């Protein structure tokens, strides 16, 4: 088949308005460049006069005008069937719908019975501020005792006697550590116990089922808790202190 033929067809069938679109593309281009220059100059003017809205209008208003010029004249949407205009308009409207649905949660930082503490803190400290380790200020439990902490938190899995037979431990694989087992202490020291309590067993290559609990306790408290854990060790098996 002849390529020329094909091309001529494209004029006839494709557009139904032979001989191009009678647009002076150069004129459109010049308008676009002028608009572009205004949009660049806008912020300068806005800054000089201190009027922020000038910046916004020149920036976004002109963006819309420019986009419209390109879409209508360069993409020839102006001559396209209505069907496709509807399709494109629909996709655009859906985006507005999406933003409308999401913005009450994402754009706002508080609402009916909720408050986005972290986002407010981020606004507060600005872009250069360092994020704190723990934005949620949760005081460490006051009146800490290692026994109490072990019985409320650890014993769920490790058992009240530290033998790994806690009620929640039965289903775990690997099973929770048995602190009364001499073999367990063969290669463990206090530092490792503290690391596991703070960062979880995964931090030392163990099972991820042992979650990090560092956020619950201060360093001293973790140290006390680790001593308490070591106290379960059978005589002679306990690792040396620090």
């Amino acid at each position, binding site marked *: 088949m002849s390529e020329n033929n094909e091309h001529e067809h494209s004029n006839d069938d494709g557009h139904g308005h032979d001989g191009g679109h009678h647009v002076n593309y150069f004129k459109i281009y010049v308008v676009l460049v002028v608009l572009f220059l205004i949009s660049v100059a806008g912020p300068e003017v806005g800054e000089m006069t201190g009027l922020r809205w000038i910046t916004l209008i020149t920036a976004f208003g002109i963006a819309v005008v420019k986009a419209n010029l390109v879409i209508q004249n360069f993409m020839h949407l102006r001559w396209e069937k209505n069907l496709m205009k509807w399709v494109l308009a629909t996709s655009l409207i859906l985006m507005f719908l999406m933003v409308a649905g999401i913005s*009450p*949660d994402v754009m706002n930082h508080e609402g009916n019975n909720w408050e986005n503490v972290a986002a407010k803190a981020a606004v507060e400290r600005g872009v250069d501020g360092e994020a704190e380790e723990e934005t949620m200020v949760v005081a460490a439990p006051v009146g800490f005792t290692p026994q109490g902490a072990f019985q409320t938190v650890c014993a769920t899995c490790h058992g009240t006697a530290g033998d790994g037979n806690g009620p929640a431990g039965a*289903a775990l694989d690997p099973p929770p550590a048995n602190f009364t087992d001499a073999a367990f202490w063969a290669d463990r020291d206090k530092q490792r116990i503290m690391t596991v309590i703070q960062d979880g067993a995964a931090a030392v290559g163990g099972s*991820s089922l042992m979650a990090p609990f560092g956020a619950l306790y201060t360093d001293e408290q973790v140290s006390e808790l680790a001593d308490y854990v070591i106290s379960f060790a059978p005589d002679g098996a306990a690792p040396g202190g620090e």
Partner: protein
Amino acid sequence: MADTVVDVHQHEHAGHDGHHDPHWIVKYLWSTDHKIIAMQYLFTGMFMGIIGAYMAYVFRMQLAFPGISVPGFGQVSPGEYNSLITNHGSIMIFWVAMPVLIAAFGNYLIPLMIGADDMVFPRINRLSYQIFLVSAIILLASLFVEGGGFGGAWTSYPPLSAEGDYNQTNLGSSLWLLAVALEFVAFLLGGINFITTLMNSRAPGMKAYDIPMVLWMIVIASILFMLSVGPLIAGAVMLFFDQTINTGFYDPTRGGDPILWQHLFWFFGHPEVYVVLLPAIGITVDVIATFARKKIFGYKLVLYTAVATGVLSFFVWAHHQFIAGIDPRMANVFTITTLLISVPIAELLFVMIATLYGGSIRLTTPMLWALAFIAEFLIGGVTGIFLGASGADIYFHDTYFVLAHFHYTFFPIAIIGTFCGFTYWFPKMFGRMMNDTLGKIHFWGTIIPFNFIFIPLFVLGMGGQHRRIYNFQHFPELAGPEMYSLRQIATISLLIMLAFQAVFFFNMFWSWFKGEKAGKNPWKANTLEWTTESPPGHGNWPPDQMPVVYRGPYEYGHPDREEDYWPQHLPS
């Protein structure tokens, strides 16, 4: 009409191949023929379906008999359990329901039913399947990497999905996300092909209202998919960066927002439900019309309600998030829109039921599946009202009630709909009839256990049992013996149902090679695919016999005709 994409290289290539049989690899794996691509999608989907079913088997065993060593798997650890449920969900929706219902049936049926010789962009079609295949391979690979497969549920909410520290499956979650994103790309390419083909390539005389309903539904579904998936693709890129290069898009301490992902996901996720629902409804409508020998009750009514459903589906997404930390005031808006969507869906079902009126109903295997679709989907539909109403959802959210509800929608869609379409078009696809008796045994062996799986789960959900918990022994109120007996009923029913699938596979392979020859039009149906050979050759029709359309697709029982059907291509 030459102003279209014409591929010169393909011409040359085709010129070489034209007169001798291509190597089988070229013929079956590198083909641009829409029928071959449809088969590729169909069998890939079935294969993934078997994997998804195997996962369901493993975790149902764990739930009913916690701690046992599951035959064929071994003991299930909590991490493995999470990975199994996550990938079961992802596979069943993205790698089974979508490829089979949209891609396989879409590819097979669109050109045949509109009287075209192929899709408009055959090579993009092939590319679409290849990307899909790669995505499936990546997903399967993600199960075997270090740390195991992703275990953050198919919704993949960050921060759990975003940080390796939280989910312990750093590589698995990135691969999972990559696989899902590639799958989206595959369906975007496929969807453009479907839409363009239906819009432009209809046989002469085929007007918009002469298009069979299943094609409308597949194309509406593709449009819904295209318009809803965009933000999620953007969101997935952001999540991928969070996972791999430690950006903070979803990290609240760094100015991000975890709620954002939920919105982006469900802005896609809810239309996605209708993306898979509509093709299944389309298949059902076509099958019912054929076997009830009835014109469907209000063609335009069905079409417009489907469009209305599609449009409304963009307004309801946050009903998945009522208690997920969105502003409570927004929940009221979404309750209203959600309950409104029940109106067009109810209307679709009413229309399907009304189509039966005055018919001459033949209970063949495909018809049984179609009727089962209506009966079972009704249960899924009405239980959805509980979840769409914000007040009731406070209690039901994330319980087994939700789980049973969406299985009552997705099972009819993905399994019943697929079997319905497969048994109906099997004669066209392979040129032979399926065995009806075996088909019915398989039907009842699937439908009855199905109900016994999920009705107990409704009860468990009402008892307050939450999803995604691998072992209930830590919850004294859920660990009672009556709760376990319900779980065991569900699991044993699942085993029975899975066992009956063997009947289907036997029937399929046996009928494929040994079945009775089907002929061109075994069901005496009207639509164009029944006017060509079974299976159709390359190009679907001989070039000089391309069909021309004279009437709509559902002219059954017309009073002016002696026969009770009136094919679309016959001149008056």
